[in-house]
């Protein structure tokens, strides 16, 4: 084992010295995670927008829409809702990007609703599609409720009796229920990591392959530069050489993922979950990446070829495993195929950790499958690498 550590220390020294591991395994994923989280709004927890409302009506039905329906978005912290005097000013707000959408309530809105006449609320949207959809959804929900009220009122009028004021009031209150807020709440309940955590974790699992590969690459490089002949002539066993390379890959992978977890937590406020649960998940992910890197490198003849193959495999598995596009948005076939990737199981584990009540048992499937992937691919890779070491 002493020899294995000697070899591992030599590989680590070389990789730290040439900075390749730091650049590919730490700085690049950290930069990408920061960039993604800045460029893409966090729809789950940090999303915020601004609407402006032109209330030409001023009646009590318009007040329900403005104060209760749209007001609930403001109370939930999703949007600022500001009144504005004219439609021209509203359009300017949207055009300049100061507001994501403008809601224009017509002058006879309350009378039309109470009289059972058609009334049109217009929504003027900018380029922020998500904001526009939220505004449209809120007003649409209100319009559907108003339709129910109108039916009840119309029915009541047709029977010759006066509308029951209490009934109408209850229906109007129901119409003001903050539907969009409940949508946002349900998203959090699906145990999904926030955007900063997701992209931090996604970049970590994608780039950990670039860290762990340096162990296996060292063996390929030794064959190319001729130093392998010294190993073979030395009084050491083949497994010591393989163990040394594996230890180096494991340490690099572990350091890379740990640094990313800490850095995204400090810099972006990512929440990777309790360290006691995160640690075994990260260890399992590193083992899986090591196994695949070892297998891929065992088929290469040169370090350049091994590096290229590892990059192709890392990127392909990342795409398939939901690093770029969440698996939940992928077609059914792809969603199933994603489950053969370590990326899928790692990100699923991170989602599991988003729940306050997560336990090690909840992480069991992710950790188990990651370890199984690592053991299977690593065993095949090591057998192949060992056969290359043994003189024939």
């Amino acid at each position, binding site marked *: 084992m002493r020899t294995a550590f000697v070899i591992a220390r030599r590989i680590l*020294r070389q990789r730290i010295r*040439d900075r390749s591991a730091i650049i590919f395994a730490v700085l690049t994923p950290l930069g990408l995670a920061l960039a993604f989280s800045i460029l893409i709004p966090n729809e789950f927890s940090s999303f915020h927008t601004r609407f402006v409302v032109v209330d030409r009506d001023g009646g009590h039905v318009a007040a329900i829409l403005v104060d209760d329906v749209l007001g609930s978005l403001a109370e939930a912290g999703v949007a600022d809702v500001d009144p504005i005097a004219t439609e021209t000013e509203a359009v300017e707000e949207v055009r300049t990007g100061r507001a994501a959408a403008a809601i224009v309530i017509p002058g006879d809105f309350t009378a039309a609703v109470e009289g059972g006449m058609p009334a049109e609320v217009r929504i003027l949207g900018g380029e922020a599609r998500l904001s526009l959809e939220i505004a449209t959804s809120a007003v649409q929900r209100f319009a559907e409720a108003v339709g129910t009220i109108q039916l009840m009122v119309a029915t009541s009028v047709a029977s010759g009796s006066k509308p029951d004021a209490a009934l109408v009031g209850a229906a109007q209150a129901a119409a003001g229920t903050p539907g969009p807020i409940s949508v946002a709440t349900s998203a959090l309940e699906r145990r999904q990591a926030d955007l900063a955590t997701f992209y931090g974790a996604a970049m970590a699992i994608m780039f950990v392959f670039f860290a762990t590969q340096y162990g296996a690459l060292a063996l390929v490089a030794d064959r190319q*530069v001729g130093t392998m*002949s010294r190993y073979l*002539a*030395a*009084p050491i066993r083949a497994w010591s050489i393989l163990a040394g390379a594996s230890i180096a890959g494991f340490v690099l992978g572990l350091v890379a993922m740990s640094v990313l977890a800490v850095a995204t937590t400090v810099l972006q406020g990512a929440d990777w979950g309790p360290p006691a649960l995160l640690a075994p998940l990260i260890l399992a992910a590193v083992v899986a990446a090591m196994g695949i890197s070892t297998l891929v490198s065992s088929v290469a003849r040169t370090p350049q070829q091994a590096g290229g193959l590892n990059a192709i495999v890392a990127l392909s598995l990342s795409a398939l495993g939901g690093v770029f596009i969440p698996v939940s948005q992928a077609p059914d076939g792809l969603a199933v195929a994603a489950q053969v990737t370590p990326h899928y199981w790692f990100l699923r584990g991170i989602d599991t950790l988003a729940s306050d009540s997560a336990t090690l048992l909840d992480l069991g499937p992710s950790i188990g499958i990651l370890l199984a992937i690592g053991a299977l691919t690593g065993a095949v890779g090591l057998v192949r690498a060992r056969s290359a070491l043994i*003189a024939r």
Partner: protein
Amino acid sequence: MSAVVPAATLACTGLTKRFGDRLAVDGVGFEIAAGETYGLLGPNGAGKTTSISMICGLLARDGGEVVVHGRPIDPGATAAKAAIGYVPQDLAIYPDLTARENLIFFGQLYGLGGQALTARVAELLEVIGLTDRARDRTEQFSGGMKRRLNIAIGLLHRPRLLVLDEPTVGVDPQSRNAILSSVQELGREGMAILYTTHYMEEAERLCDRVGIIDEGRIRAEGTRRELVDLVGQRDRIRLIASGDLATAATTARAQPGVHEATAGDDSLDLLATNGRVLLPGLLAALSGNGLAIRSVEVIEPDLEAVFLHLTGKALRD
């Protein structure tokens, strides 16, 4: 062939290696005693590297045996390999590590450590003249410096058998001379040395015995003199002189061992057996005839001629 070598540090017999249909090494065998330098002389592709790869346990053999310091060698014989110091033909050093780091790392692979390793590294750096450059990365070294470091790594653990595979290929004359001197010194210190080369001059300068290898087989083996005698070639002696050269030629022909004598304008050219041995008597006889001899040159047949005789081709073919 040479006499039986006592207490062989290396004994290999019947080494055979086949790559597909090609028989790369065909029954190679020889012994090397402590303090002896044995040369494997042959052109590129003769089977030198394949032979020493089997001797060092880098390559599994299809037949034959290798025993180093009384212990059999094969790819899995890790403990027995500790007796061998291997210097590969291609540079086998890490360019992004310093000279000292390279030596320490490979020393640790041989189980060295602590003060003993530190002292040995310092000693070898001194021997190869790299003490001042010990902390420089080897990628900054000249070819000769890299070669010297390449050899030093093979000496770290004070092996009983040093195997050098064409260690001077691509080396400048100055470094080459330094390497050859170092190898000679190691031999004098009692190390058994196996030295492969396709440079006839190196084999003649360094080796106590030489095995001439071609197409995977050892064609002849022995001391330089034994090999030359095997071929039956004679020494050429040239004397630059003034006086009666025709008479001198007649006198020379009468000397035992002289087969032919030709007088020139100011020189006398002779063909003889063991020219250096008979030279004193020859010079005395010629001086007695009033010949004024200004210079003498003895040209012995070299291993190049032996190789040509044995294989029908030149070493560098």
